[in-house]
């Protein structure tokens, strides 16, 4: 079988291994784009990995006023967790502490009713902050809660839809040195931000601390992926080709497999766009031999 390459960069014959998650989409609006961004960065803060954050969250895309329920600037936020129960806990905390508190904001559900597998309580929990002065309003079949706050009212949809989703789609950029890896990762992230239905939950969309399952220390569920650490090539069973001096990973959570495939394809193509001369030597993907998750994204299929 011939080896796949883009612009002289080797695409390894491997796959990204992903697992099932539960997700919801929140639409947050505010009086101005600046306050939408304040709320969004707060809601999606400390939400890089379910390993320690409880959920993975990110901005799917910014919304123009014509796309939001109240005609104001908005943002679409995707939140992923391992169970409906954990997702319920996370959205309640995050909307309560990061959206309700943020001036001029409002929060709505972004999963269409026909797609929702079940419902998570949002306004129906947050309403208690109103201390009896809250008002519900049923408009065109959707129930909203109006909670009096110091700048007027916080408006919040009563419930948001939950969908089955996929977390842990990924690919690895193997580069000659850290600047080359970072530049390629930034190109990939910029391309992937244009794909709907996915988020890149790590800082700037990029991870440097790819992990393997387990550790020599019993307390840890995950530890550094030593096979991809360039400083350990002579010590461990390294999977790095010669000349690789830095590896960066891009992790993708998506509402469905097709969105993840599209994101991976666009990201890999953008990372490879400047060719081997820019320092990118190979593209790989993280997997655990098929033991962790049922969703396998083979790089060759993604790029086909």
């Amino acid at each position, binding site marked *: 079988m011939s080896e796949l390459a883009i612009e002289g960069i080797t695409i390894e014959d491997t796959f990204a291994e992903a697992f099932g998650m539960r997700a919801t989409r929140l639409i947050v609006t505010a009086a101005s784009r600046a306050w939408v961004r304040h709320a969004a960065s707060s809601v999606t803060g400390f939400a890089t990995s379910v390993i320690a954050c409880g959920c993975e969250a990110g901005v799917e895309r910014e919304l123009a006023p014509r796309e939001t*329920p*109240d*005609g104001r600037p908005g943002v679409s936020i995707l939140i992923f967790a391992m169970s409906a129960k954990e997702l319920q806990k996370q959205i309640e905390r995050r909307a309560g502490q990061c959206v309700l508190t943020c001036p001029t904001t*409002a929060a709505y559900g972004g999963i269409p009713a026909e797609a929702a597998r079940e419902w998570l309580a949002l306004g129906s929990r947050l309403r208690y902050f109103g201390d009896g*002065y809250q*008002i*519900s*309003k*049923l*408009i*065109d079949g959707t129930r*909203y809660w*109006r909670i009096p706050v110091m700048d*007027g*009212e916080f*408006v919040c949809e009563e419930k948001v839809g939950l969908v089955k989703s996929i977390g842990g789609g990924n690919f690895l950029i193997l580069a000659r040195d850290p600047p080359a890896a970072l530049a390629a990762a930034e190109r990939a992230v910029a391309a992937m931000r244009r794909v709907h239905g996915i988020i890149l939950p790590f800082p700037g969309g990029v991870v440097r601390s790819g992990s393997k399952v387990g550790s020599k220390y019993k307390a840890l569920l995950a530890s550094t992926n030593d096979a991809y650490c360039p400083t350990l090539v002579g010590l461990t069973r390294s999977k790095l080709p010669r000349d690789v001096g830095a590896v960066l990973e891009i992790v993708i959570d998506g509402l469905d497999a097709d969105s993840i495939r599209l994101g991976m394809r666009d990201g890999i193509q953008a990372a490879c766009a400047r060719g081997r001369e820019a320092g990118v030597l190979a593209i790989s993907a993280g997997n655990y031999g098929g033991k962790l998750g049922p969703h396998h994204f083979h790089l060759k299929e993604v790029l086909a």
Partner: protein
Amino acid sequence: MKPLTFRLKSRPPCRIDASPLVPAALAGKSRDELARLRLLGWNESYPAGELFAISGEDSTQVVLEGLDGSLVRVGAGLDGGELTVVGHAGDYTGESMRRGTLVIRGSAGDYLGAGMRGGTLTVSGNVGTFAGSGRGGELYGMAGGCIVVRGSAGDRAGDRMRRGLLLIEGNVGSYCAARMVAGSAVVLGSVGTHPGYLMRRGTLLLADREVELLPTFNDNGRHRLLAVRLLLASVAQHGSGFRRFARCVEFARWLGDLGCEGMGEVLIAQ
């Protein structure tokens, strides 16, 4: 297929309960069966064929023509499909309707949409008292759906209203939204005395700046409320008058009736 049409031949000898003349009850019936359908009067029943000239076939769209107010409970319990009334629909029109569309090209009597649970009820003319309320003795009034009155409504519109949307393009009489529990009512014309009397919760939106509220309502300032914007965007779908009203951005917010729970909201466009 043409809509199934019942044209009233002449004024009946007494008030007739027209509630069987709804799409679900007429579906699958032959012309003979329709003609034999018994409609209750004061103390006897009448075959529909005696009262109406029947034409058309499509029972999902039923038309009642030439009504003069002698039929009561027109469209009562409507549970889907489309019912059109031409003329004066009598009392209890659309009572307890749950789904579907009831269009009245004309006027309606008292208790329009009493105890309504869903669907859309539109009246091109005026309606009597207790529109969107509940029957006497019922704890609650309208509890869902949407009533649109292009003309004016009498006293007690929205009495004991519990949920849903009551839209009145013209004027309303006294005691509008009295004893309201929840839901939203909008009045574009003038408002009689005692609006919101003993209302516990719910929202009454008024265009009439001259309205005289009860002393048991207190002023909570002028606001530009997002929830009102969402509500008005929905209200605007119901015609040009409501579209113009939906352009209002600032409302004076009065809360009452402090004679009871006091969480009712009267919003007056500024």
